[in-house]
């Protein structure tokens, strides 16, 4: 896989924000390319050049503040998602981050703009980041947003940081909006997606190659009643599926009503995990032969097919992102204000930025 951590480079692992700032300032002065690494799980996006410096965030992983009453938590970006969620679960809370995170970190999930499978009901990662403290390429420490669940104070920098792959700065700390976990949960297998419409707002409706499942949560009374109404095999609790694995990994994004059509278009040997009512299909394949056709269809319908990972040389002419997004000039100029030497994760974004 191209997705990996370069070994022939200098590795640094700052444990505080001032050291991080000094590293980035020096990197800008010497025009050194910096690869930022959290858990190292999502290094396959875009087409970055080999880095001079590998910046590991694992030493900036503290919980800074967490008062369960406030429904917010502030953590160092290097905090592993699994560890954070396990801690929050002790007080029946969740940050609604990806359910099967592997080694991924909070900062990595935010930088890559990856969301929870529960996003149809609880919204995506972009809706959950309340405050970010960044270190820009030229070493400025910049905070945006606030540590309260709701605020309109200046431009929404935290939202811009989600999915920006570090191009506005390395994320040092983030404040996330939490959600209370209700007492009961269940998973119901269904044969026909039509059945899922019997529940107004399920937590998730997921489809994989061999299974369609509705995920429910709520009070005991609600979960008992709604799961019975769905009429399939009921399992208590949630067993969340991992993203499909393979040499090529894809993120297919279409308008929600086209989710089933997108699945129907996938070649039979592609593995997939689709989030109905959202329009996100995570897929994996052995080759990229049919990807161009799928991308054409997705883009014609207002969507995209994004390469999440691919083996070296495997894409043969296929752009990692597809058609460039609107406002590319503005995006470049924004990034130039935060990373003037373009040293942090260059080449990760659409348009080769």
């Amino acid at each position: 896989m191209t997705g990996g951590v370069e070994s022939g480079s200098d590795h640094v692992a700052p444990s505080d924000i001032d050291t991080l700032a000094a590293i980035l300032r020096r990197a800008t002065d010497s025009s050194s390319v910096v690869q930022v690494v959290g858990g190292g799980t999502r290094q396959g996006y875009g087409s970055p050049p080999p880095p001079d410096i590998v910046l590991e965030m694992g030493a900036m992983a503290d919980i800074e503040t967490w008062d369960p009453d406030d429904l917010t938590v502030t953590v160092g970006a290097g905090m592993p998602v699994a560890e954070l969620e396990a801690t929050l679960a002790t007080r029946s809370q969740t940050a609604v981050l990806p359910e099967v995170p592997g080694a991924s970190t909070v900062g990595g999930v935010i930088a890559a703009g990856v969301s929870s499978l529960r996003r149809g009901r609880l919204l995506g990662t972009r809706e959950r980041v309340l405050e970010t403290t960044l270190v820009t390429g030229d070493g400025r420490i910049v905070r945006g947003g606030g540590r309260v669940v709701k605020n309109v104070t200046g431009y929404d920098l935290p939202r811009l940081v989600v999915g920006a792959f570090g191009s506005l700065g390395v994320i040092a700390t983030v404040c996330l909006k939490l959600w209370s976990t209700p007492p009961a949960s269940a998973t119901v297998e269904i044969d026909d997606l039509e059945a899922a419409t019997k529940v107004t707002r399920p937590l998730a409706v997921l489809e994989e190659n061999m299974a369609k499942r509705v995920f429910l949560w709520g009070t005991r009374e609600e979960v008992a009643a709604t799961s019975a109404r769905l009429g399939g095999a009921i399992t208590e609790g949630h067993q969340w599926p991992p993203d499909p694995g393979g040499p090529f990994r894809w993120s297919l994004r279409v308008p929600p009503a086209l989710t089933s059509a997108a699945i129907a278009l996938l070649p039979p040997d592609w593995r997939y995990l689709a989030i109905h009512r959202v329009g996100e299909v995570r897929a994996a394949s052995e080759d990229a032969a049919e990807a161009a056709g799928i991308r054409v269809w997705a883009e014609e319908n207002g969507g995209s097919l994004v390469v999440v990972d691919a083996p070296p040389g495997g894409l043969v002419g296929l752009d990692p992102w597809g058609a460039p997004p609107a406002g590319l000039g503005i995006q470049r100029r924004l990034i130039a204000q935060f990373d003037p030497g373009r040293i942090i994760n260059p080449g990760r974004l659409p348009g080769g930025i």
Partner: protein
Amino acid sequence: MTLIDELRLLLGVDRVLDAAVELYLYSRDASLMRGEATCVVFPETTDEVSTVVRIAEAHRVPIVARGAGTGLTAGASPTEGGIVLVTTAMNQIEIDPDNRTAWVGSGVINLDLTRAAEPYGLHFAPDPSSQSACTIGGNVANNSGGAHCLAEGATTSHVLGLEVVVAGGEVLLLGGKAPDRPGLDLKGLIVGSEGTLGVVTRALVRLLPLETDVRTLLLDFDHLSGATKTVSDVIASGLVPAALEIMDQKMTIAVENWLHAGLPTAAAAVLLAEVVGDPEAVEAEAALIDRIGRENGAGTIQIARDEAHRDTLWKGRKSAFGAVAQVAPDYYLHDTVVPRSRLVETMEEIQAIADRYQLDVYNVFHAGDGNLHPLMAFDASQPGMMERVHQAGEEMVAACLRRGGALSGEHGIGLEKRDMMRAGFTELDLDAQARLKEVFDPAATFNPAKVLPQGSRCFDFGGTRREIPDGAWI
């Protein structure tokens, strides 16, 4: 050609106003801060907006976009002169029931969108108290919230795409119905930017299914802490109700005198809670709130008997600010946020500040997310009164910031809180924000002098920004 001539050539005589009385009508929003525009224009299409932007740039005058003018922070007051661009003629609604989205003109009134969506079993979740007047464009500009945004998120969580006219009259189509459009989320940056980055002409919004059932409860307490503890315990139990609103006694009395809704005027605090969902869900959840309320000393608990009763309970909440009009001729209301765990002590300090300035303060707030709206009612004709009100207001906001709060929860910064931004952010933070503004709007055409205090840009590397002298346009 003069500015007015050029605009009239584009829009016709009727859609360009410049008579003194007309300019006066558009000289402010619902705040007390007035400006003076050169003219007021009513474009109907995105192309027209684009041309207006180019004309404004050629004449070097600012543009202040305005919907219904219900904003409370002077965000839509033309304090730097120039063109007031009224969006109300851009009022198309195009609903896509399959994808549960709608493309909506920025001049569409919030409640009209929900009414248009209802036949499809859908609604637009953000519901500011001004929803029967405020526009979607204004909601986008201020990232408006409302009572129901605790569970569903504020406007930004419901905007999937935007059509926006930026510098040079360029029309950008950002986002879309598919999730996670690759690249930077420029749409998300424009939401909440208070018209300072461009003019939004259309928004693609998410619509949610109408809830099949609802339970609305009104609980009264003889101490505020009973109400706030109930809110905390309800959320800790794993339930995030659709709304959790608290009114203090003064506000309850004012509302009851006006509305006669049967509100418990003897109580120190009243909690309005609402749960929505499938019938089984709301039944159990209402029972849970009832039990937790009693554990925390709730006196009487009313559960809405029917839709009419529910409307009455909500009307009390939503017309709270109107009710104050019968108490005193003027009011001033702040919008701040504190971490929920600090609600009680913050409220006590707000009361102490009001006492110190001998002002009446009324409270009604979104308790679930710690969003306070302390409201001072007064008679502005009394000498020195406005100074007292402003001074007390600033102290109240400072009290919230000291507790880790934010300057604004849902009303925005505008001009009112612009100079308080320094209390919440460092010079480098504000410099970063000023850079965002410069990238979008190098000529400072869009709603200049709002949101960011003068001199926010602390390092100037010879960018293209012109320094705009105060009052240059008027």
